[in-house]
């Protein structure tokens, strides 16, 4: 399976690289309302993923016959606050998390600094999680059970 993930990631990275989704100018163009490209990509992605998801869920099983399991994301006060903070970062760096890795692969040296910042940011969040839990009504950490992979 690992090879499948590498191949799908490679295809995804190539598309992000060549579509403008991993391009600083296209990200700013989206937020400046001067480029339609990113709205078109995300819009088409959602419009085509939605019916596909519906079909897969109706089928209920993966290609190998395992039951489809979709882990739903929690709803809490972190959605708005975290979303806004991430948006600020997306604008500053011109990259969202996937494209950080794509830009590094392309040879853009400064993307390494974006990755370092993102890891420190995520690490900081993990370090103060217990203090944020109450403020943002975040779900308690589930440390016990292990899902088979």
């Amino acid at each position, binding site marked *: 399976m690992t090879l499948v993930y590498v191949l799908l990631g*490679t295809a995804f990275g190539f598309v992000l690289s*060549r579509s403008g989704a991993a391009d600083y100018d296209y990200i*700013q163009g989206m937020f400046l309302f001067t480029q339609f490209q990113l709205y078109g990509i995300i819009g088409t992605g959602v419009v085509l993923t939605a019916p596909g998801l519906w079909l*897969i869920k109706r089928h209920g099983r993966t290609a190998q016959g395992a039951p489809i399991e979709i882990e739903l994301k929690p709803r809490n006060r972190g959605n708005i606050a*975290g979303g806004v903070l*991430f948006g600020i970062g*997306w604008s500053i760096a011109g990259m969202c998390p*996937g494209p950080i890795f794509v830009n590094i692969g392309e040879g853009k040296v400064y993307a390494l600094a974006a990755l370092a910042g993102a890891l420190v940011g*995520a*690490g900081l969040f993990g370090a103060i999680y217990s203090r944020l839990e109450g403020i943002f009504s975040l779900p308690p950490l589930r440390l016990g059970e292990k899902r088979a992979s």
Partner: protein
Amino acid sequence: MPLILHGLTPIHWAVAGAAIAAITLCLLFVANRRLGLSSGLEDVCSLLLKLPYFTRSSVRAGRAWRLPFIAGLAFGGFLSAVLGGGWAPTWDLGMFDQVIGLGPAGKLAWMFAGGLFIGFGTRLGGGCTSGHGIFGLSNFEMPSLVTTLSFMAGGLATTQIVYRVIFHWSA
């Protein structure tokens, strides 16, 4: 508008969107995985930090697919550069160079600052453009709609303030 990468012409948005949908659906149908990339940041953190947040069950379960997928993302970018004119380290940053114009050290600081917001914000919001924006919206999940609207608003406000207000950029 050409890409920063070798001045290449980007592929059509409909083609890119269709490809992203195909990969997202493939990941679910073949591997039973929900697309989401910002969790990959905590996967990398979990290799270095032994905090409870990074040793919880969902991180341990997701690492097995997300780390290879992320390696693929970087390799895809590498291939794109190689096939598009050759791979070489570059500092080119498009309109940032023309309008804001910081040198290498300034760019590293700028990007590190952006990264901090990305890392902290995506963890607090529970996802990013892929997990909330593509998968969550396609699955009609309310938290994803709220988060997507929030990060679009945060990005719009920041770019508008930086480019139009502070640096007086105009098209």
